[in-house]
């Protein structure tokens, strides 16, 4: 009876449906996931403290200045987070060059092949026109996501340069000098400040859209997108996986 029942289910189901068997693949290793969440913490702290630096609230205090240091402390948090942020990104960049797995490597972020440009087109259609994406074959980031992370990385590097360009007046350290000197090309720190501030908004805009899109893709594709940056695992249609292995890649 029991066997019969299972048979019945599967045959009934099979006749109606085409099961999609998913392969579980470990795409993001611990260092990448740690990088991601450290970065989220740093961006949050840098944006809040940075905003306060640009536009501190008005307070009137009845005692003298020496009793307070909140603004100095706020800047201190900004600088500490700035250092963590910088080291974290330096680590991710190196990881992407030499150490990461095939989905974490920079090669995976820059669309160098025709297939990846095609996928970018398809993902754009999927995201903008809400079309169904039948050719979404990437296993790690999709080609568009990878490309935006690459663009984001350029913005981040500029943000770090401008940050240290403002820091250079405060410190003699050689790392600061190294990362800060490109900003002297702008000739004027007022502009560096403006750019640094503006880039904060670029990052915040990226974050808004990024967070929305990972939710969107997660729910539309059912591949475990969001949990991949927590657990490391993604779920890929077995067909795609077989094809991928078959190509010997």
């Amino acid at each position: 009876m029991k066997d019969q029942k299972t048979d019945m289910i599967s045959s009934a189901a099979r006749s109606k449906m085409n099961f999609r068997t998913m392969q579980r693949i470990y795409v993001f290793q611990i260092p990448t996931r740690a990088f991601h969440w450290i970065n989220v913490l740093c961006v949050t702290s840098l944006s809040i403290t940075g905003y306060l630096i640009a536009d501190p609230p008005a307070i009137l205090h009845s005692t003298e200045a020496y009793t307070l240091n909140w603004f100095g402390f706020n800047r201190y948090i900004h600088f500490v987070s700035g250092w963590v942020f910088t080291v974290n990104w330096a680590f991710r960049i190196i990881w992407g060059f030499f150490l990461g797995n095939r989905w974490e490597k920079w090669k995976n972020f820059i669309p160098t092949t025709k297939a990846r440009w095609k996928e970018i087109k398809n993902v754009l259609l999927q995201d903008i026109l809400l079309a169904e994406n039948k050719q979404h074959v990437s296993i790690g980031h999709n080609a568009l996501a990878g490309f935006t992370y690459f663009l984001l990385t350029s913005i981040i590097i500029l943000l770090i340069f401008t940050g240290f360009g403002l820091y250079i007046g405060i410190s003699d350290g050689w790392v600061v000098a190294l990362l800060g000197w490109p900003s002297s090309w702008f000739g004027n720190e007022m502009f560096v400040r403006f750019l640094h501030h503006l880039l904060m908004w670029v990052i915040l805009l990226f974050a808004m859209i990024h967070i929305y899109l990972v939710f969107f893709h997660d729910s539309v594709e059912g591949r475990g997108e969001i949990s991949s940056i927590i657990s490391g695992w993604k779920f890929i249609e077995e067909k795609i996986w077989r094809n991928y292995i078959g190509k010997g890649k």
Partner: protein
Amino acid sequence: MKYHPFGIVGDLNDKSQSIYEEMKQRGYSRRDFMKFAATMAAFIGLESSGIAQVARAMETKQRPPVIWMHFQECTCCSESFIRSSHPIVADILLDNISLNYTETLQAASGYQAEKSLHDTIKNSFGEYILLIEGSVPMANPGYCMIGGKSAEEILNEVAEGAKAIIAWGSCASNGCVQSAKPNPTKATPIHKIIKNKRIVRVPGCPPIGEVMAGVIVHLLTFERLPELDNQGRPKTFYSRRVHDTCYRRPNYDAGLFVESWDDEGARRGFCLYKMGCRGPVTYNACGITKWNNGTSFPIQSGHGCIGCSEANFWDSGPLYKHMSSFPGFGIESNADKVGLYAAGAATAGIVAHAIATNIRKNKILDSNVQNARDVESEDLDIQ
């Protein structure tokens, strides 16, 4: 003393004299001289042993010939220089400049003036110090033209034989106000024209008189340029921000800011950051040397720094706001306003997208739903 419509050409005939000898002739005592040497040594940041070095240099070395050129400027650098705290600076270092200044304006024009400049260049080729005030108009050779020569040609000619070139003030260093957008005369700073020589840049509108004197004394004493930063500014005077030497700094760290010109904070001397003070982005010695014989400086009199020694300060406005306006979005726009609008637009986009996704949900999710195993409905199916 010789004249040129663009400026004053130092005395060349009297080559034998040292600065000390000139001072004696003018009735300064040995004591005055030593005081002067000590002041200057302190300004240029020497140790106490440096006083002797400065004194010896001025006793033994001849005063070098000096050419002071004027292009597009307002003469505030000259004004600042001749009013630097020590009278000897103006009196002796550049000889008669202060005395003959008005004569300069009425000075001989035409052939004689041209000849005088020419002689200087020829007779002390490779020896004279060239001091330049003002930016060079490149838009039209007719601007500032003298004797049929454009300002650029005159500059190139004078610069060729100069032992050292000092760009006085923001005009010669960065172009200053006349190069503000849209820069109708194409005002150009000296280092963008003379490329084969190191130009000492002493920016400020004007630079502090003592700083100008310090640079010259350094040149006389050591016969080489002072240590310069990557923008060509003497490190002694331009390595620190006004903000780092500002006496209101404790208020900044405490977060105590003036909110409007007439509030309690303004009376109590809070930090002027929110009133647009450019101290945090301005490299100058105002907080230490101060102005008018050390009397005060802008921040001490309750006004923020406008960043006069920084390139493009005139285009980084509004001057009374902390943040620059956003180019192309009008005076009242800044990065925050533009950013907030963009974030608003993004939010609207996301909301619209989410709604559209949900309306079309069935279609979009169709394949997922069809291809997934929905145990509950399967069970129902069987029963």
